[in-house]
């Protein structure tokens, strides 16, 4: 417990730094440093005094790109997670609270989406829709809600089976009362945990889509950098400085979200 809290605090600290970078980087980095037509440095420089993470295939500083990419990756991760968790919570509560045909249909759809390989679907969606951040968010969001829905539904059912809900019903409470006063407050912490973990998944998914060349090519994200690295032959050139930093950034941020999520989970879940 305490260990995870420590890990959770560490994760939160990392996230704070990442968020700070995401907010500050666009302010500090001039457009010239990102514009391939204006950079003057030689491409494929290994790390040195001037560029301490080296330069990419166009001569841009990798360090600058990583900082700039934080915003995109975090934005996609957060919005996709919010979308997924939002849909999931709605579906979960509705199918858990109301019985009958609606719930049955919702459950069927949830199960269906649950078994569909999310990555395959996300790839298909991002091929169909026009390129852009919105598409990525939509593709990830629309494919990752079912697990949340399942979990929220289970929690809703658990709560509904609790005597205090029966007591509330016996007091004369209706659907709005039961959902608003009892179900939602009990679901929200779990949803929060779920959202945190969903951000982690979404960031990895974003990088995967970008790597497969389905990202928004006009934006710099960590996944897009890896895509570029692969496209322009970073591996055969042994340009580790172009390959490592974006990947490490992904791992660190995703790990941080996971740690925070687990710490929250430990707090939220009642101890046995």
């Amino acid at each position, binding site marked *: 417990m305490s*260990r995870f809290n420590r890990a959770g605090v560490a994760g939160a600290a990392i996230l704070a730094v990442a968020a700070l970078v995401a907010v500050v980087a666009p302010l500090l980095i001039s457009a010239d440093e990102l514009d391939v037509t204006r950079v003057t440095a030689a491409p494929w420089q290994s790390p040195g005094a001037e560029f301490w993470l080296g330069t990419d295939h166009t001569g841009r500083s990798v360090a600058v790109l990583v900082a700039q990419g934080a915003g995109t990756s975090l934005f996609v991760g957060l919005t996709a997670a919010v979308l997924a968790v939002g849909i999931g919570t709605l579906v979960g509560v509705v199918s858990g609270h109301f019985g009958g045909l609606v719930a049955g249909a919702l459950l*069927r759809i949830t*199960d*269906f989406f649950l*078994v*569909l*390989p999310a*990555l*395959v679907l996300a*790839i*298909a*969606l991002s*091929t*169909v829709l026009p390129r852009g951040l919105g598409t990525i968010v939509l593709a990830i969001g629309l494919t990752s809600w079912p697990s949340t829905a399942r979990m929220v539904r289970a929690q809703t059912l658990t709560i509904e089976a609790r005597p205090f809900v029966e007591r509330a019903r016996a007091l004369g409470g209706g659907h709005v009362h039961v959902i608003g006063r009892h179900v939602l407050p009990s679901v929200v912490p779990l949803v929060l945990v779920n959202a945190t973990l969903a951000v*982690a998944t979404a960031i*990895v998914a974003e*990088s*995967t889509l970008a*790597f*497969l060349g389905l990202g928004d090519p006009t934006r710099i994200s960590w*996944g897009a950098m*890896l895509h570029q*690295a*692969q496209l322009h032959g*970073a*591996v055969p050139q*042994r340009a*580790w400085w172009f*390959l*490592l930093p974006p*990947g490490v950034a*992904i*791992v*660190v941020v*995703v*790990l941080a979200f*996971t*740690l925070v999520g*687990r710490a929250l989970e430990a707090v939220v879940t009642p101890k*046995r």
Partner: protein
Amino acid sequence: MRRGVRLWGRLGGAALSLVMVAVLGFFLFRVVPGDPVVSMTRGRPTTAAMQAELRAQFGLDRPLHEQFFSYFTSLLRGDLGTSFTFRRPVADVILERLGPTLLLVGTSTVIAVGLGLWLGVRAAWRRDSAFDKATTGVSLTLWAVPTFWLGMLLMMATGELFPSRGMRDTDTAPDFVSQALDVGHHLVLPSLTLVAVVCAEYMLVMRSSLLEEMHAPYLTTARAKGLRDDLVRRRHAVPNAVLPAITLVFLRFGLVVAGAITTETVFSWPGLGLLFYDALTGPDYFLLQGLLVVTAGAVVVMNLLAELLYGVLDPRVKVV
């Protein structure tokens, strides 16, 4: 306590899911913009008549609902249509690529399951020990690693030790031993990549599953009987805790097939994932929808198997 798995209900549900997969597969890829015939013939001397001929060959000139009807009826016969790219029945193309994927995913799953469950049990049993902290930490980190990136790193790190692509060399002697060793040699990096990522998940699941059981009263009973610690673990705790993990393994197996897309792309492993990636660039409608139907169908079937298996493994669940 007694939970029943209604066999017919499950079968019906799975069948419904398969139908939905088929419908989704058809429409999703019909929404993809672009004329596949134009993509195919790009950069070659082509006349309008030739394009029309190609369209007719693939039935693209018929109205959508007719296309759907013929698609659906042939699907029932196991005919997935003809691939644009390979000009062969989609079912054949997929079947051909199934072997490499099963080899990769199968090997990785076996190793990952063995290793992951073993590590998970160890870690949970000695909760908060150095071993637990180390394995949990590593697993959480690996879980955060994008698969393709890990693959690229491994490729860069191992330099020339391993082949960078494919499943076999073309100049290996044709005898079985040489071929098998060659395939094994090619298999090392891709399966290592998959194992690392999948194993981490299995480990975490096994660990948390066992932690759930750690305070179960029947373990106290077992201890009170005088059982050694490792016997308590092996005979009592693990048989209970492993059930959810096994279910997960089955569920994941289908998903891993789909998840092998990135690994196969990085290592040019000639399996379904690579095929999927190739089909996307076409766009090869029939191949794409065939792949979606097959992979999602596999997951649906695995799902069903997982539930039925659960009924066999867990005496509390009866299949009726």
